[in-house]
């Protein structure tokens, strides 16, 4: 089975008023997460698409999906966990409880706030995850990457041609990911914020899928402005 898991863990920040979490902010009059869900729905290789979201936003997520897309049988909305990896695992627990997990099952995990992904990126994640088990989506680094241990002085300047920027989707053989995660100590779980890194530390080879520079993550108002600019750029005829 092939699962899509869309991570919508943002809770919004309290600044006098309760703000909408970023995944629900409007991009061209449509919540960002809806754009992302729609792209997943157009790939019929997914047997199930799971949206993982904080408990208090589950109703809201369901409401807007119904409003903008309709009732979709192959979608499920699942309560997220305390952090990104815990949320991924909550989605996988849902699979374990409802269908069960087979050796070859894969999950394509994706940030709900990356609505610009393409058919190719999804397809290559599926094809390569089926073959190689763990996949990360990346683009070549265009800026020189500076490493600083103390935030004040440079400790290293890695060779740029070997540097990439991580995007999503990240895709996994489900059993391999679960085994890797469960073998971590609680302390390790707290430090390892990237699911691919969990597998890397367990000695797993991770293959790369080429992302796109426009597959941006909308996290701050500046990103939303860029996304709006992209959509409202020069129109065709």
């Amino acid at each position, binding site marked *: 089975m092939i699962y899509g898991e869309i991570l919508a863990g943002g809770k919004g920040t309290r600044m006098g008023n309760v703000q909408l979490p970023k995944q629900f902010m409007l991009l*061209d009059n449509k919540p960002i997460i809806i754009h992302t869900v729609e792209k997943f729905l*157009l790939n*019929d290789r997914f047997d199930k698409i799971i949206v993982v979201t904080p408990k208090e936003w589950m109703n809201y997520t369901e409401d807007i999906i119904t409003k903008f897309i309709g009732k979709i049988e192959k979608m499920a909305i699942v309560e997220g966990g305390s952090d990104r990896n815990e949320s991924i695992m909550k989605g996988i627990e849902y699979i374990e409880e409802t269908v069960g997990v087979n050796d070859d099952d894969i999950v394509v995990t994706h940030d709900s706030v990356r609505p610009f992904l393409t*058919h190719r990126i999804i397809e290559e994640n599926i094809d390569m995850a089926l073959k190689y088990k763990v996949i990360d989506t990346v683009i070549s680094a265009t800026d020189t990457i500076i490493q600083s241990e103390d935030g004040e002085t440079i400790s290293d300047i890695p060779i740029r041609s070997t540097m990439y920027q991580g995007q999503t989707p990240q895709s996994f053989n489900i059993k391999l990911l679960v085994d890797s995660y469960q073998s971590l100590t609680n302390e390790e779980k707290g430090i390892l914020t990237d699911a691919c890194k969990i597998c890397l530390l367990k000695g797993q080879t991770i293959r790369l899928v080429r992302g796109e520079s426009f597959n941006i993550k909308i996290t701050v108002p500046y990103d939303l402005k860029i996304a709006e600019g992209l959509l409202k750029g020069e*129109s065709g*005829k």
Partner: protein
Amino acid sequence: MINQVYRLVNPRHFEVHYKDESLSSPLVAVRPTYFSICAADQRYYTGKRNKEVLSKKLPMALIHEAVGEVVHDPTGHYKVGTHVALIPDDPTEENPVIEENYLRSTRFHSSSCDGFMQDYVFMKPNRLVSLFDGLDLEMASFTELMSVSMHAIRQFKRRALYPASTLGVWGDGNLGFITCLFLKNLFPEAKVYLFSKHNDKAEHFSFVDRIYYIDHVPDDLTVDHAFECVGGYGSESAFEQIIDHIEPMGTIMALGVSEYPVALNTRMLLEKGLSMIGCSRSGRVDFVNTIHFLEEHPHVQEYLKTLVGSVQTIHEISDISKIFEHDLMTSWGKTVVKWQI
């Protein structure tokens, strides 16, 4: 959903643009799988259209010859996974006399609106035609071009004044090949003659009854009716030769596009009482007829496969220009594109 649209913004320069699409609209979402490049696309790509046309139409996604796979259909007409041919003309009105491809209000993908170079294409259900199982998709990518021949032949059947015993086809390019092949199978009693300029191209036309090279046509040779598939600078000499060799009251089907005014020997056109029928593009009925014809004639499919000059894959936007440049260097056959961007 944010759809990526790969538009030509200036000659030889493509950019990705983004467009919101709704899955709840009454349109069928299709993932294009194979394209083929048409001379009309190349006229935009190389900037051969005049400046006013280019500035009015660009930026615009190119490609109007394509097949794809249905990925979402809220209208219930197509199962997900159905392979379809995409019809590039999009009529906005119905007319009892004027066919959809001749209505001035009809939009045409890659001419008056974006072509099919998109992540997904959203089409009205009647702008798609299901393909039958087993049809070679690389070959099917140029169904639109086949439908243009099929359209011209349907018009010819309606409008020719007398049956054909000899049919002349001028033009040894892709359209000439398909037109000869279809005529030979739809009019098995008639002799089909190819009028060719290039020896190497004519060698592919093994199924015609006779090949004449245009600089060695016997003076006394006649054809009942003629199909002009030349276009461009060659149009004028082709029409001149057709008018010289066609029988009185014959019908000339004009298919070749020319960017330039073409002089005609109207004296002889009048004296012979000739009919000249312009043909451009095709309509849904021609697509349906083409697919049905291919299903009924498996050997025609084999001939058409020989027209696939090369199959190129597009993975990223920079590949698009490379493939258009490759197509420009190709002297024979269709450049087919596997769309994996």
